[in-house]
């Protein structure tokens, strides 16, 4: 498992590059790699911009029937999200365009889990499987 600290725009780029490497290593097709890296970019940016910085964890995983996949976790100790349902609808914004970040990312991956409480930070876990 790889861990990347997200404290700057540079780090978002590093997360993208690392996710790309792990996705390719685990048999994801080019389109699936692109989708996962794009989702990672969205989520990493959220962590930076709205979470005040945080950490990304990148892990290769295996499903019950032996399929390879990639699991990403983005966590921060920021202000958290008050209304999760609202955050997951398309076009929701707080200030500088959180916009499509969460709902869009969800469509790009196979599994998506969001945990957040105001004042208790945010954690997003996503998984994308190879076909």
């Amino acid at each position, binding site marked *: 498992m790889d861990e990347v600290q997200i404290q700057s725009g540079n780090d978002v780029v590093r997360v*993208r590059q690392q996710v790309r490497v792990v996705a390719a290593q685990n048999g994801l097709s080019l389109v699936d790699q692109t*989708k996962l890296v*794009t989702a990672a970019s969205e989520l990493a940016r959220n962590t930076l911009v709205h979470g005040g910085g945080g950490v990304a964890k990148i892990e290769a995983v295996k499903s019950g029937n032996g399929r390879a996949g990639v699991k990403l976790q983005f966590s921060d100790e920021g202000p958290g999200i008050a209304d999760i349902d609202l955050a997951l609808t398309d076009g929701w914004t707080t200030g500088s*365009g959180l916009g*499509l*970040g969460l709902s869009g990312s969800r469509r790009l991956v196979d599994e998506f889990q969001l945990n957040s409480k105001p004042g208790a930070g945010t954690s997003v876990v996503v998984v994308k499987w190879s076909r």
Partner: protein
Amino acid sequence: MERVPILKIGQTLFVSIQIDLQDDTVMRLQEDLADELAATGARGVIIDITAVEIVDSFIGRMLSMIGSISRLFDADTVIVGMRPAVAITLTELGLPLTGVRTALNAEKGLEILNGKS
């Protein structure tokens, strides 16, 4: 920070993005293009993203903004060379990419720009 170079050929500004885009690089590009458009009165902008592997919602919105800014200078913007994987991802992401036209390559992008003037 890396700056994306802007080439002027005739009435068109050409931008070819070859690097992994950081947020501030895109914002800088926006500023530079606005400056160039104001200074040169160019009628069209072609942004070549053949080498771009990831277009997320931030970058997508920036591209749309570039389109809107160009419009204010009476110029059209065409995004060319989008990779299939990027197009499929953008579609799934639900990002509408307004304010800009899209074309397969710079040549076709120019045809669009010339057709309009």
